[in-house]
């Protein structure tokens, strides 16, 4: 599973629920899969970049990190039990939500929505392929 960084940026910016819940947000967070390390940068609630070339020297506030199996289940059309959200996957399946917990909790409505947007992006990529 490859996540197209440009499609993810555009999809997040076009999603009304994500934009509403991400209002005033200035942050950078990582989406980590087995093959990708995407650095999502937000300025005042808008995704300004999804950087596919992130390195260990880049600062991030929190990360969403999992194996290929984690992501496949999280982004499935109907996720299996306890893959319906990052939080449940963290508690029961070893998925990792790590970083500044105050930021994570304060913006969890937006973070929660990223899973649904990611699922849409991946589904559209598969249709296009």
């Amino acid at each position, binding site marked *: 599973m490859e996540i197209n960084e440009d499609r993810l940026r555009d999809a997040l910016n076009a999603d009304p629920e994500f934009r509403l819940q991400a209002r005033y947000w200035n942050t950078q967070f990582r989406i980590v899969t087995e093959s990708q390390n995407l650095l999502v940068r937000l300025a005042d609630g808008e995704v300004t970049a999804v950087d596919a070339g992130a390195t260990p020297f880049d600062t991030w506030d929190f990360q969403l990190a999992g194996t290929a199996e984690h992501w496949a289940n999280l982004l499935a059309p*109907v996720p299996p039990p*306890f893959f*319906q*959200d990052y*939080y*449940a996957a963290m508690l029961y399946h070893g998925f990792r939500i790590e970083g500044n917990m*105050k930021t994570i909790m304060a913006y*969890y409505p937006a973070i929660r929505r990223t899973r649904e947007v990611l699922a849409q992006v991946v589904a559209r990529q598969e249709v296009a392929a």
Partner: protein
Amino acid sequence: MSRFADVAGRYVYLTVQGVEYRVYFEEAGSGTPVVLQHTAGCDNRQWRHLLEDPDVTADFRLIAVDLPYHGKSLPPTSERWWTTEYTLTEEFLLAFHVAFVEALELDRPVYMGCSMGGHLAADLALRHPGSYRAVVGIEATLHSHGMERILPWLYHPEIGNDTKPALMHTLCAPDSPEEFVRETVWVYSQGAPPVFKGDLEYYMVGHDLTESAREIDTDRVGVWVLSAEYDWAAPPAACAALAAEVRGSHFVPMTGIGHFPMSENPARFKQIVLPVLREAALSGQVAAVRA
């Protein structure tokens, strides 16, 4: 012609642990009384679908209560409640429900509650088996220890009132109808800021039947444990562990549903709960004959 819901709301004044509370409840239907308890940080609107379903209200008098500090049950005017952090205790919950049943002069009702209310089902069965003919614990477990460190984040000056409902959204099943998931989440967004955390002091810390669940006597009070497949707060294994400890209890798995069955997927929940309520109502008759 206007369409009205066949649901009536009233207030009753209850004195619990020496304090008078003005308590709001809604009711609908006739027949075996069923007292309905909402989840932590929420209110009786969670039960609205059941209260408006004529297939249920034909045989059952449903009574959905707002605990003090929840919904329309305001904090007591006699207390300086703003000088201390709200915390719910098991002793208060038990005393409240016994007082509520007495005030409404209910004849050994069925009690049904979800999550925090599910935990209370088992606590009532243990401590007040004579007051109820049966209890239905939805998402009830022996305990919910292990996540206590989340509590400070749930009443925090720098975290808004959208976070709690977002977390509740994650407890719903992916196939539950979105309009009802969103309604469930909306109701959660309206709890007073300290209440969810305060309720979880009972849910996560106070409630623990690990050593005592086996003392519940199902000859005196019927016990049902309903368990949802997608509920990560009370996973099926934890619900099954409670049922296994209570000899004679009934364990009912609910596939494709999450932590809030009555509000996130009312049609599916009705299919599951109606046979349970019918059997639970009869368990009172059996107990009465034995008495």
